[in-house]
């Protein structure tokens, strides 16, 4: 009887604790609850809001965090003034907006940028202007091969190879077909990674590039299945991945081939959309922790969104990226004398960031001082579609992308 009571008491306490953690107090700044009133620190961001897709969830989330920071002491009394601009998926607009933020508004740092076109358009400009970018989500190759641009996400290629690594290690795949979009520096870049890993490890790989605007998914799937691969990896956005999976199911391929995807198909709505035929058959890579993870920092992100964001702001991976970028910026700025916050001092502080801990990342994030390129987020998790939800099935594993050699070498010197 006593034992039962003890167990009940224990479970009650646990229940209470988890209930408390679900409504955990928001943590940001110095947690003093005193609004910052000093001279604002100008931080800029460029995002692709209007256009083929809305990438602004990253900056919305970063804004929520900065609001929280400003309400809690700011950067040693100075609030952050966060200026977000929409590049409309137009490289020319992106360049004009960067000049406006950096030259006219005198931004000292860029935080949470997430744009399909901005990296190619602005990487050189940022380097010349001596401003650093702690980006949210980078997609094309240029975002990961620039001196002043460090995204918090892993990128489509690292993510796709994370999925490939899982297929090799856990699903014993011996052959693969890679389906990517025919967009330069995105689709080819990702699938080339799979091919070069195939050469290194000696498995069979085939690349199929498709026009994301094509209506005919069945033919693409038939072409991919023609070589009878063990697995098919997708590098498409969720809007294209879902029709591809539907076409594969129509052909009965979900019973013979395992499908995997880069993080671009990781959205909470996907498992329910594709339905029960894919339970245990469709794996997806995750650049960040599970969106609903009950770990402290992930819960803090959700709490910040609830208290300082808009109700309509999506709680997705882009938002996680923006939150992390804002927190990293906070960490760098806090090392400075509030009276001496200039672009030079901020850039120097950002370059020194290392060992940034968050349970949303797999490994501590660092900027990589002096490195010609940045890809600190290169360890990822996997989840599988099951019962209309994603079920996390793997611990963090380093992506086996052969192109990460320089990054791995730099990481070895940090230890």
């Amino acid at each position, binding site marked *: 009887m006593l034992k039962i009571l003890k167990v009940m008491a224990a479970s009650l306490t646990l229940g209470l604790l988890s209930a408390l953690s679900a409504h955990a107090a928001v943590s940001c700044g110095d947690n003093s609850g005193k609004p910052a009133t000093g001279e604002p620190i100008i931080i800029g961001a460029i995002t692709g809001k209007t256009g083929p897709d809305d990438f602004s969830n990253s900056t919305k989330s970063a804004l929520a965090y900065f609001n929280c920071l400003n309400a809690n002491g700011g950067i040693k009394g100075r609030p952050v003034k966060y200026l977000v601009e929409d590049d409309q998926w137009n490289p020319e607009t992106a360049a004009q907006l960067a000049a406006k933020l950096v030259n006219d508004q005198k931004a000292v740092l860029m935080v949470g940028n997430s744009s399909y076109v901005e990296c190619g358009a602005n990487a050189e400009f940022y380097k010349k202007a001596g401003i650093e970018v702690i980006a949210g989500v980078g997609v094309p190759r240029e975002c990961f091969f620039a001196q002043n641009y460090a995204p918090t996400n892993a990128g489509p290629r690292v993510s796709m190879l994370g999925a490939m690594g899982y297929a090799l290690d856990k699903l014993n795949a011996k052959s693969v077909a890679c389906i990517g979009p*025919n967009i330069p520096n995105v689709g080819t870049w990702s699938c080339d990674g799979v091919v070069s890993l195939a050469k290194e490890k000696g498995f069979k790989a085939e690349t*199929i*590039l498709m026009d994301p605007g094509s*209506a005919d998914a069945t*033919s693409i799937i*038939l*072409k991919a299945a023609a070589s009878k691969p063990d697995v098919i990896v997708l590098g498409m956005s*969720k*809007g294209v991945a879902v029709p591809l999976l539907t076409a594969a199911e129509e052909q009965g391929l979900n019973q013979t081939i395992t499908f995997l995807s880069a993080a671009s198909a990781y959205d909470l709505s996907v498992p329910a959309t594709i339905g029960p035929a894919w339970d245990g058959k469709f794996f997806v890579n995750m650049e960040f922790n599970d969106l609903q993870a009950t770990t402290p920092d992930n819960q803090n992100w959700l709490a910040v969104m609830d208290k300082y964001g808009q109700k309509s702001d999506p709680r997705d991976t882009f938002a996680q990226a923006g939150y992390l970028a804002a927190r990293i910026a906070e960490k760098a700025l806090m090392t400075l004398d509030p009276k001496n916050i200039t672009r030079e001092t901020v850039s120097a502080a950002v370059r020194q960031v290392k060992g940034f801990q968050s349970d949303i990342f797999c490994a501590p994030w660092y900027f990589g001082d002096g490195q010609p390129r940045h890809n600190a987020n290169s360890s990822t998790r996997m989840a599988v579609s099951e019962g209309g939800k994603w079920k996390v099935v793997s611990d963090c594993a380093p992506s086996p992308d052969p192109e990460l050699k320089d990054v791995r070498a730099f990481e070895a010197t940090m230890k």
Partner: protein
Amino acid sequence: MNLLPFLISGLGIGAVYALSGVGLVILYRSTGVLNFAFGAIGALGAHVAWQLQQWQQPLAVAILAAVAVATAVSFLYGRVFAPLLSHRDTVVQAVGTVAPALFLIAVMGVIWGELPRRLQLPTDQMFLTLFGVRLTATRLIALALAILMVVAITLLLNRTRLGLDMRALANDRDLSAILGVRIRYTETAAWVITGVFAGLAGLLLADLVRLQGTFLTFLVIPAIAAAILGQLRSLTVTAIAGISVGVVEAALTPIDWVSSYRAAAPFVIALAAVMILGAMSITTLRDR
């Protein structure tokens, strides 16, 4: 690589292009309007069907509602807005239909968003295997429907009073009015018929391709290509052209050097057709 599987896979979508193309031609012949909103109207219907499925309504209700909504929207535009432009150039009338298309894209965006959805029909699970490809019952229905509608519309045009009026309008609008053809009535009937086509095509495309407002709206383009191949006049040629466009697009998949450009196939085909027809000066576009 064996082409046969791809030919089979192109049949389904080709059939819907054919259906859409015929829907466009019947409207153009009676009213002189090339309806760019055709895809958007169909997409709206498909979204309504999806919503009803989410609300656990029977399939028949969902399908009927989709066609009813598409028809109603088409009727509304045809009755209220299209007559305001009826004395303008063909180009002005065609561009006018871009307005409802954009409006509907916005409405669908606000209500359902751009997240990918899946509209499923029970016929997706039934199939026969041909050359190693599963041809689902949905695709067979699309093919049958395309043929059935061509036959039905041909009969309508040749055997009924409404059909006679439509043909008269197509020939000479002013003369028909003098002869006592009820222009408003006939044109509205054409808008209703094209609305039914849009509803059916939208449902099928949402199932075969994807349920996404903007995407489905722009699938009107291959249908326009088919209609142009039929010189906006011949229902049979339009239907055959629609199926061909779908099959050609699919058959280009295994040919690596064109594979990633195959989405351009409908435009290239239509462009070539316009040039060839123009050069042979047998085009009858001007007097519809």
